[in-house]
């Protein structure tokens, strides 16, 4: 049974018109010349930054949009199945939510008391107020992955007022930061990507460090004040250094220490995040200054 297509054996040669009327046409249609031309033109335009940037942005938006359209039916089917499951367990879910609601109400009372106490103490100690943070929730469209870069595509962009380098969190903790912002779609660089660096501190030993992604699921702590003081099971939060991430946001827990390498298990379940929140520091020109400083302007 012929499962795979086989080439037909070439029949006898038939007389036909010369497909290459001249030597110039033969040269122009040569594979090597086309290859060299594409590489030369493409390569030279690659180093012309304004052109490269505009092409990169356009391609990013176009491909992200195509990918979101492509995965939409799959994600809708997934949601439908999830909803069906929820509907089947509605009674139990209602009971759980009621219980959680009561718990949150009591926590809210404590929170209000602490908030007013905090405000009074701040006033008495003359501590400068933190910058106000706005929040925007966005749906995760897709997370394309070929083993190199870890990122999400989210359904929000410049139209919603997002800007590069804004912090992105989930309900459980830090997810990453905005790496590229298009008009309607943005790319979130996850904290476990090899190029991600987040200033953090440990809760018990109070050691400041940088959380560096390594490409796998567990990022590591580098540039630590005193690594010997850090223990397994310690909570890690953002330190607020650098101005991108506000201080005190949960990041993860120290999972393993092997040969001086401290691995952190992130709180946010990066494989199963459906919605993320983008934190917006309300300060005009902050990101312009930051980008300028990073680019050495």
């Amino acid at each position, binding site marked *: 049974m012929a*499962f*795979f*297509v*086989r*080439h037909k054996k070439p029949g006898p040669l038939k007389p036909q018109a010369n497909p290459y009327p001249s030597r110039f046409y033969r040269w122009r249609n040569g*594979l*090597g010349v*086309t*290859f060299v031309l*594409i*590489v030369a033109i*493409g*390569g030279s335009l*690659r180093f012309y930054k304004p052109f*490269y940037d505009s*092409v*990169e942005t356009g*391609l*990013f938006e*176009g*491909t*992200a949009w*195509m*990918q979101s359209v*492509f*995965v939409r039916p*799959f994600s809708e089917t997934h949601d439908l199945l999830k909803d069906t499951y929820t509907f089947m367990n509605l009674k139990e879910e209602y009971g759980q939510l009621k219980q959680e609601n009561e718990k949150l109400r009591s926590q809210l009372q404590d929170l209000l008391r602490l908030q007013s106490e905090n405000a009074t103490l701040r006033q008495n100690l003359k501590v400068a107020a933190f910058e106000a943070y706005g929040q925007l929730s966005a749906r995760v469209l*897709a*997370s*394309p*992955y*070929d*083993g*190199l*870069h870890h*990122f999400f595509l989210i359904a929000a962009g410049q139209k919603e007022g997002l800007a590069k380098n804004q912090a992105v969190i989930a309900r459980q903790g830090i997810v990453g930061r905005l*790496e590229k912002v298009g008009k309607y779609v943005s*790319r979130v660089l996850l904290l476990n*990507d*090899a*190029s991600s660096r987040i200033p953090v501190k440990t809760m018990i030993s109070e050691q400041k460090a940088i959380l560096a992604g*390594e*490409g*796998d699921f567990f990022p590591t702590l580098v540039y630590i004040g005193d690594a010997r003081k850090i223990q397994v099971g310690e909570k890690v939060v953002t330190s607020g250094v650098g101005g991108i991430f506000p201080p005190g946001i949960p990041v993860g827990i120290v999972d393993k220490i092997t040969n001086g390498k401290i691995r952190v298990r992130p709180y946010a379940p990066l494989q199963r995040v459906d919605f993320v929140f983008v934190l917006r520091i309300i300060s005009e020109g902050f990101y312009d200054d930051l980008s300028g400083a990073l680019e050495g302007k």
Partner: protein
Amino acid sequence: MKLLKVTPFLTLILAIMGGSSLRIGGCPVLPAFFLIPVYYWLVYRSDLLPLWSLFAVGLFYDALLSHELGLTSLFLMLSSFFGHYIRPYLTPYHFLFIWGAFGIYSFIYLTFFSLCASGSWPFFTSWLYGILLYPSLAYGLSHLHTRLHSYD
């Protein structure tokens, strides 16, 4: 039926979009997964995958997967370039031979790709997935191929 001539190009784009969200056991199937249609069409119908289309597919891949623009384009065009000289030696009558040649091609591609791209990378698993998935995907592509033949 000129529109049918873009079928190989579309299969590449669909393989990239479908493969980018596909993970088996937590490991990605790309880039070896999208090399299957590249290899198949370069072996059987290289005339339908000109350098320009491979250049465009490479740009699409790089933009979607956040690589440096042009890296995949260059590798795909080199595949086409060398494939032009190697293709006459590939006998399409023996599937195992073609399958084995795909294993070698994908290994060379992934080696160069991992050398040029920075960061850690589950190179071996991707290569293995590519080899294992080749027969099923090539089976589907062969049906498209016969349909294209009937319109020629």
